[in-house]
């Protein structure tokens, strides 16, 4: 550990204080609390500055330039030109509702996020309440129920693409056996059903993640609260509304933020399931950005899209923190 001391920005021994003093320090590694904090935090903060803040800054700059194809061409400052061609012109409302390209991707991402996340939250809470009870075989049930969370998103997409296959898919087979369908239906080949299938898959997968987080929250609610409520004659439903839900609020906030932002950045699922089709019906914002950047090599508009995604993500995070955060004295 002696080498961490070398990187300490705060131990500038004054020339006068002498070698002895410094040696003593290195030997004992006795820092003040603040010195130690700086030593421990410097690697993390500098790491994040290089890998997280600098790239965002660079992307914003790239969105204001053209010809930025990984240094092959010199960059040219074009102001907001990339944004203008990305967002098009015409009445704003019309573009929001019917526009293609960026606007279509924005609609897909918003629908994807704000349909799937609330359903996942409710289903996840149901699963968590179920798993919060003690029963025989709980260990295996819990492993099975939490399993979808662990499957890689893009591999999951491939699995479901096979299961939803229009000719040989097991989903079609089951629906026909139950009697809901008469013949096989090409779910992923029709715009509406492709989007619905994508929503179904993400809800299936992510409800287990929600359950994981909410289960942890449920287990940290002290039992004596429920005992007291039972003694007062409160029903189970009452207990849920008056104890579980309020005490689960911080966990719900974490789960919402943890899910909304990734859902808004969905990429692997449409990439592996449909490639964004048919007719861009499942092209999410990040997939759109990816295609813009890597297929059409339009780095300027790609960076502009990424900047807009960053702004929307920041807005979502701030709205959640504002509405759900209760100031606490820590």
């Amino acid at each position, binding site marked *: 550990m002696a080498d961490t001391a070398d990187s300490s920005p705060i131990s500038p021994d004054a020339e006068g204080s002498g070698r002895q003093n410094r040696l003593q320090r290195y030997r004992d*590694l006795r*820092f003040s609390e603040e010195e*130690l*904090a*700086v030593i*421990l935090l410097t*690697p*993390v*903060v500098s*790491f*994040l500055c*290089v*890998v997280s*803040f600098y*790239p965002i800054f*660079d*992307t914003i700059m*790239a969105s204001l330039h053209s010809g930025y194809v*990984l240094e092959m061409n010199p960059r040219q400052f074009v102001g907001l030109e990339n944004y203008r061609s990305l967002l098009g012109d015409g009445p704003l409302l019309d573009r929001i509702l019917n526009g293609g390209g960026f606007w279509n991707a924005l609609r897909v991402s918003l629908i994807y996020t704000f349909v799937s996340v609330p359903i996942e939250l409710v289903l996840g809470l149901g*699963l968590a309440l179920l798993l919060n009870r003690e*029963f025989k075989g709980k*260990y295996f049930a*819990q*492993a*099975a129920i*939490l*399993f*979808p969370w*662990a499957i*890689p998103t*893009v*591999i999951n*997409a*491939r*699995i*479901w693409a*096979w*299961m939803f296959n229009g000719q*040989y*898919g*097991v989903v079609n*087979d089951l629906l026909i056996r139950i009697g809901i369908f008469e013949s*096989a239906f090409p779910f992923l080949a029709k715009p509406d059903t492709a989007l619905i299938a994508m929503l179904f898959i993400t809800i*299936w997968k992510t409800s287990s993640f929600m359950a*994981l987080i909410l289960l*942890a*929250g449920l287990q*940290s609610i002290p039992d004596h609260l429920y005992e007291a409520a039972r003694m007062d004659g409160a029903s189970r439903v009452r207990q849920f509304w008056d104890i579980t839900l309020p005490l689960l609020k*911080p966990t719900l906030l974490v789960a919402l933020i943890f899910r909304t*932002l990734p859902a808004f950045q969905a*990429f*692997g699922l449409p*990439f592996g399931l449909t490639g964004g089709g048919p007719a861009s019906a499942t092209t999410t914002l*990040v997939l759109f950005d*990816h295609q813009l950047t*890597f297929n059409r090599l339009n780095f300027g508009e790609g960076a502009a899209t*990424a900047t807009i*995604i960053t702004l929307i*993500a*920041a807005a979502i995070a701030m709205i959640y923190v504002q509405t759900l955060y209760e100031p606490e004295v820590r």
Partner: protein
Amino acid sequence: MSHDSNSLEIERFQWVGKKVGFYGSIFIIALVSVFPILWMFITSLKQPGNIVTFPVEYIPRDPTLANYRAAFEGAPFFRYMLNSAIVATGTAILSVFLGAMAGYALSRLRFRFKLPVLLLILGTAMLPFIARLIPLFSLARSWGLLNNYLGLIIPYTAFQLPFAVWIFQAYFKELPDSLEEAGLMDGLSRIGVLFRIILPVSAPAMATAAIIVFIYAWNEFLFALTFMTEDSMRTITVGIALYQGEFQYPWGTISAAVFMSVIPLILFMLFFQRKVVEGLTATGKA
């Protein structure tokens, strides 16, 4: 008397009904949760000709391992898994190490600008990955980190650090002050306290952080797709996503590859799920 036994009967009947309903719903939910993987397994055992039939067959006739052989011949899936394992392990170790250091400072040391630093670290979790992709790609290229494990370990660690820091600072905050006081009294330095006393009792937080970070790194796709351009350096997620057969789409081979790739995850869930929940519970209290 008969009335009494009658109502007892009814109660007993209701009790049995409740049990059956409860276990029945648990069973159905568990089945729905594992069905896709089960289906991959079933598909992978079918004779190639029996995969593309409709109505589908639920129990493979003449089960075969031909699809597994085809998977190994068609692409270096073992190599992909090895790459994934190296990247995920490296990311987990680095994240735990840096996360514990920062988490300790943020929860147990007094210093100026603590809240801004915490918010700065957590705030990076909100930054979209796609907005960091191209600049990091340029950086990785100029530093020679493309097709290099570190090229993925470094960004993954940065992405998971906010989470790791959060886990550790929440966990450390709950430890009693007397732990440190005893250590300082015995003549340990503060760093000594961190490494000799705090870290050894933090195994649950380490396990939680390491497992979640590992699974994240194993599963990540966007950066793995972009930074590993050589086939031999691909991770398993990218390897499977990009796998194309020579002729028609090879569902049997894909199923075999998918099933092999999730075996580590199945073992992970069986052995470590309780650790994950416990660790998250400990941090939820903070």
